[in-house]
């Protein structure tokens, strides 16, 4: 048997139930992998070995007693460090929250604990999830397990690196403009942004409330579905969470794509996309077509406005969401002669450059006299985009595009120019603005051996058909490569 750290969630769960593997053994393999790779990657901000160990032991006891909590029971899962964990430091990658220990668990954390998952710790991220490379973390960048000179993507780069390298079997991230899907693409993983409202945001440190969704990162479509199933559903603590039945997330994974209508999103599959990425994308579309899908080009012209729209709405919301970090009640406090000065000093020292840039952008966009031209206009464009997408989904069941215009870029390559960095979200932003689900899965590697991601988007609550297409494409692509750093030097009997 291979190193348990390299197992999928489904395979590890099966091995545990066959009695071939214990939750404690699995955790040890994962912790061993972390100890071998963390110095190279810095995927974790906090590795909670004691808490994880206790959870793994409890899982073993429960399973031995026949108390099976389901597919995540005993499985080591990592959490992005913007998800509040009772009693465990939660920083959102920011100096302003260094040392902050929440008194409560995020709803998704409660769900995972209830599912018997073993929570390994808190993963690195761009500060307050603002970034596409994890270079904006106040605690240093995370590196890509495929090439440690390159970024893992972001903002959920720590979660992606951990799952890719085997220091967790799955992880949760948050996706406001692609922060789960883009790092999944750059690290050769499956990443999902669920329908807005499918997963409770309670306890997720907010970046942009109308765009934020928590989603899973995993090595396979099946694993991603298992994780999403565990965290989806109405929560009374989140007024934007959807009441009613959760979609049958994994129901169609074995159905194939015959007869499904797949739309290739014109605006996102040409100009601005790297040639190798486009070639791999085209090949994958060809496989879907050969497997019986009806493939058509679909144009949604409003997509051209996604970046400016997003970079008005998200900063505007963040400017208010981050106002609470003022040094009064928790986190960093930098004294001043007056209360206002104390607040200004705290925020000036506590926030990094990108966070300050977005707060300023958002404050400006909401200011008297500018609101209509900026925030108001962005909301109107968002409404028009919704209309365009609704029309597109009358013609097709899903829309597809590359996930990221490029494969993993070099550390430092885009930090000097924020606009270049913003462009790396061009393919992922529309799904956040629309609210519908989107998924990225790996379909191959470029010449440099770096993974390429393929994005499947569906209308709101269209998770079932989205997973159906993704599962079939996963089979057709046969992507099984693991990053070099995920070595299997240590094997279990």
């Amino acid at each position, binding site marked *: 048997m291979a190193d348990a750290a390299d197992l999928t969630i489904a395979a590890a769960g099966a091995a545990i139930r066959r009695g071939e593997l214990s939750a404690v053994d699995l955790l040890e393999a994962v912790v061993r992998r972390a100890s071998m790779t963390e110095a190279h990657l810095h995927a974790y901000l906090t590795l909670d070995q004691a808490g994880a160990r206790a959870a793994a032991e409890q899982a073993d006891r429960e399973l031995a007693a026949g108390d099976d909590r389901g597919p995540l029971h005993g499985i080591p899962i990592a959490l992005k460090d*913007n*998800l*509040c964990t009772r009693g465990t430091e*939660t920083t*959102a990658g920011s100096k302003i*929250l260094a040392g*902050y220990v*929440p*008194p*409560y668990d*995020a709803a998704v954390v409660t769900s995972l604990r209830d599912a018997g998952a073993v929570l390994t710790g808190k993963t690195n991220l761009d500060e307050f999830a603002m970034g596409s490379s994890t270079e904006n973390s106040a605690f240093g960048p995370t590196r890509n397990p495929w090439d440690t000179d390159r970024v893992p993507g972001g903002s959920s780069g720590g979660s992606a690196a951990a799952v890719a390298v085997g220091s967790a079997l799955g992880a949760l991230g948050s996706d406001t403009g692609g922060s789960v899907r883009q790092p999944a693409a750059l690290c050769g993983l499956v990443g999902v942004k669920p329908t807005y409202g499918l997963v409770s*945001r*309670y*306890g*997720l*440190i*907010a970046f*942009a*409330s*109308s765009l934020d969704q928590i989603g899973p990162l995993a090595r396979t479509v099946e694993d991603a579905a298992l994780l999403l199933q565990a965290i989806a559903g109405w929560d*009374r*603590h*989140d*007024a*934007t969470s959807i009441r009613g039945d959760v979609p049958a997330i994994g129901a169609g994974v074995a159905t194939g794509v015959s007869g499904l209508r797949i739309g290739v999103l014109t605006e996102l599959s040409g100009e601005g996309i790297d040639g190798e990425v486009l070639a791999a994308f085209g090949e994958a579309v060809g496989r879907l077509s050969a497997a019986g899908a009806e493939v058509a080009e679909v144009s949604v012209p409003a997509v051209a406005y996604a970046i400016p729209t997003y970079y008005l709405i998200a900063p*505007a*919301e963040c*400017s*208010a969401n981050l*106002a*609470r*970090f*003022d040094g*009064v*009640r*928790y986190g960093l406090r930098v004294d001043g002669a*007056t*209360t*206002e000065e104390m*607040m200004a000093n705290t925020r000036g020292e506590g926030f990094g450059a990108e966070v300050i840039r977005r707060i300023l952008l958002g*404050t400006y966009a*909401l*200011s*008297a006299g500018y*609101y209509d031209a900026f*925030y108001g206009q962005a909301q109107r464009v968002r409404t028009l985009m919704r209309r365009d997408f609704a029309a597109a989904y009358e013609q097709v069941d899903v829309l597809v595009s590359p996930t990221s215009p490029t494969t993993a870029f070099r550390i430092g390559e885009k930090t000097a120019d924020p606009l270049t960095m913003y462009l790396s979200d061009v393919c992922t932003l529309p799904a956040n603005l629309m609210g519908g689900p989107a998924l990225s899965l790996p379909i191959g590697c470029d010449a440099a051996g770096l993974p390429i991601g393929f994005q499947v988007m569906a209308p709101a609550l269209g998770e079932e058909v989205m997973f159906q297409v993704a599962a079939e494409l996963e089979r057709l692509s046969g992507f099984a490569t693991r990053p070099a750093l995920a070595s299997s030097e240590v094997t279990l009997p």
Partner: protein
Amino acid sequence: MSGLEAVIGIETHVELRTRSKMFCGCAVAFGAKPNVNTCPVCLGLPGALPVPNEEAIESILRIGAALGCDIVERSVFHRKSYFYPDLPKNYQISQYDLPLCVGGHLDVVVDGETVRVGITRVHMEEDTGKSLHAGDGGRIHAADHTLLDFNRSGVPLVEIVTEPDLRTAEQARSYAAELQRIVRTLSVSDARLEEGSMRFDANVSVRRPGAGFGTRTEVKNMNSLRSLQRAVGYEIDRQIALVAAGGTVVQETRHWNEATATTLAMRSKEESEDYRYFQEPDLVPLEVDAAWRQRVVDSLPELPAMRRHRYVATGVNAATVSSLVNDDALGDLFDAAVAAGADARTVANWLTGEVVAYLRQEDVTLADTDLTAADLADLAAMLADGAVSASAAKDVLRGVLAGEGRPRAVAGARDLLQISDTGLLETEVDAVLAAHPDELARIRHGDAKPFGYLVGQVMRATGGKADPKLVSELLRRRTAG
């Protein structure tokens, strides 16, 4: 004299008496130990989210309906951003361009003149925490340190905004008093000014009648109806004097100082306020369907104005009606006594006369006494039957209030019952007439003068306990013979 008139609009904040806060499950309680009624939501902890309180929405709809507002079908919350230590999120969840209730009115009667005060809007928001500035003057800028209590943070707050329809300080006070009565009648708030559960801000400006609006000031910090009236009056006089002296009014917020009875400009803000309102993305729009709106309207209790109309229709005089309407306990007892058969005018006069005087003198409330609606009905019946005189009835009432027993027992114990037995009195009348033949003769010859004397003789013979009306009646009959 100055030729200037004042223009006043009032913004009122009402803290709702709901079981839990506006956006979390924490208890709403006045006077608890600091920071005990708090949670991640009302402390603004990272990751916490608001969930609206349906009871609070119901309460504001009742207020809106009572003020004759349109309740909108779709309303949204906005974030109002400003930095202040007792505002945990540094934004307040409030409403902006789509409030729940719009376009109502409240009629206020001052000196017999009815003023219709337009209600611009009634909207829902959350309260802030409380800052206790330790050190000089109780103001943040001079404080050594500041203590924060977040028990009030997130308590549901209703803001009621009037049109600039008020013209005098007295009207302003009457409006505030009537609004307070309405809020209490609806049982949605304690509406205590001294505890801050009802707070008034007045916008005051002056102008030549018919001219456009003058520059206004906002006057804050009035914690009683009296101080509201005084503060508005002071501010009107100040502005008129200022304009008369050739000065101009500056738009600013002014603080009412009860001790000096003046308004003072608060420290001016360095930059103008920009609250950067935008729709609260953590909440979905509130939908109030037609059935809900109708249910709210149908469930409204009798409002003070309606009660006033009803009382006036019973023939009770205007001043007495006001006293009854201004005090719910008196009004309720009045209604119950009338329902039990008492004469409305009699009971109204007793309640607003003897009863109020007794309560004031003994410094007790109606609930502290034994007086019941049945007592009032019995006593009114005794008076109507002649069992007691009007003045004796008042004595009986005081006895009942003092806990001496039920009216008949009190009248007996206090020896206040009248003789209204016709047979017995006829004997007394005949005896008096027999003893005064001259007077009888004069009366029979058309001289009415001795009549009163004879009544007095009968009263004397009965030790003053005869019903004088009945005695007169009997004498008239006999002397006519």
